């Protein structure tokens, strides 16, 4: 029996349908929990109210979206706990990403009726040029010497939160939802001893996870959307992480199906050629 030729357009169309199903109706397929995710959750949970957390680093917006699943859940947890957040973007697309995740977490008092007030509970700083590690070093030594205004152009001296943030002594935790986590490890964790967490992209996780062994108790990573879904489960939300996990499961099943189909086609053709 000769199997018909399967055009790539058909494969993509079927794949798209399999993506759409869980995106419209998240199924909530089960996934394993990582002990590191529990540790990260407990670290944020144990911070005293009013602690300042920095969300800093740099990366490409499109790929950083993978980190957003975990980051949004973390922001929700921080807002609920009464923690404060300051951003430190070192790539040109990072300020927009920071704004996006805070907006997506719907924690702003004026916009969504959430618990956070801009300037008091969180501050968005503008892009800081000069190279990741140079900026981190300068930021941790003297925040006010490194940056003068926020993203909207307001002098940071006029923002109540920035009155409490002067140098690394005032930072309780650093979260990096970007590809460039290694620069954060090199300066923030290794040199200044601040605990660093990254809801990392899966590719970044593969590259930088050995640093968790190198700096135990100082460096933590969540693995891509899986880590994001795990964190969402701990915070008690079903967000992007859950949707993507369902899509992964569907797409993986489909890929296996196509591999089997492809092999059957190949074997059937080999038989035909021999005849």
């Amino acid at each position: 029996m000769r199997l018909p030729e399967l055009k790539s357009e058909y494969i993509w169309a079927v794949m798209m349908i399999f993506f759409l199903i869980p995106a419209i109706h998240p199924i909530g397929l089960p996934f394993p929990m990582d002990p590191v995710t529990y540790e990260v959750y407990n670290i944020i949970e144990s911070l005293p109210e009013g602690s300042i957390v920095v969300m800093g680093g740099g990366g490409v917006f499109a790929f950083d979206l993978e980190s957003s699943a975990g980051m949004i859940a973390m922001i929700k947890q921080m807002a609920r706990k009464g923690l404060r957040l300051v951003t430190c973007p070192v790539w040109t697309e990072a300020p927009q990403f920071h704004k996006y995740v805070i907006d997506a977490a719907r924690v702003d008092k004026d916009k969504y009726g959430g618990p956070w007030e801009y300037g008091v509970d969180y501050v968005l700083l503008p892009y800081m040029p000069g190279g990741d590690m140079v900026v981190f070093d300068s930021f941790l030594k003297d925040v006010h010497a490194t940056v003068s205004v926020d993203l909207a152009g307001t002098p940071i001296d006029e923002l109540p939160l920035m009155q409490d943030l002067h140098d690394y002594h005032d930072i309780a935790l650093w979260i990096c939802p970007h590809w460039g986590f290694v620069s954060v490890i090199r300066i923030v964790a290794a040199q200044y001893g601040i605990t660093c967490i990254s809801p990392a992209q899966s590719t970044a996780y593969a590259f930088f996870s050995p640093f968790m062994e190198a700096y135990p108790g100082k460096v933590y990573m969540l693995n891509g959307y899986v880590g994001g879904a795990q964190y969402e489960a701990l915070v008690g939300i079903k967000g992007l992480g859950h949707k993507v996990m369902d899509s992964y499961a569907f797409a993986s099943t489909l890929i296996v199906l196509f591999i089997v189909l492809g092999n059957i086609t190949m074997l059937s053709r080999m038989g035909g050629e021999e005849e």
Partner: protein
Amino acid sequence: MLTLAIFSMLLGDNKFFRWAEATYTATVIGHSVVTGLLTLKDRFYPLYTGQKPILIIPLILGITSLFVVWRRYAWVSTVAMALMIGVGTGISIRTLIATDVVGNVRAVISETAKVLEGSPATRLGYFIRIVFTICALLYFLFILVPKGGPGGKFFNYIATIGKYALIVYMGIAIGNTIQQFVGTATVAIDRLISTWLGLS
């Protein structure tokens, strides 16, 4: 519209896709220009207000660095470039040695100790990591290695395992990259469905 246009590439090259591609490229360039101008305003705010007159030095260096695009006067930019590279390297080199070299050696030692504790599966996992790390490192050792004889043969075996370790690593890296792209596509579809169509 742009998301749909980009996805239309799956059906083959078309005008709709090319329009979205050009729009995206122009937006990225436009965004970079605007960010650059805003950064200039933000960074030199204390200079404009007279709080930090010393910022005139980085401003001059920044302007001189632009001469790099003008072949005849490109030499003007050398001081700014040298300073930038020098400071960057100076700050990163000490941390690179501490984290990437010493830190990773510490990680390997720590993982070696873990081969003796935990469940059999965990022990095996750490054992494979240690063996793969050492063999992959030895694969890149080209000097001070035995050539020929039993020693040379043994080293070749080690290097071959190292080569396989690198292939496994590349496979994992590609797998992760595909996973990342799948996730990015899902996010784009999710945005279309939830934000645009309001279906979930």
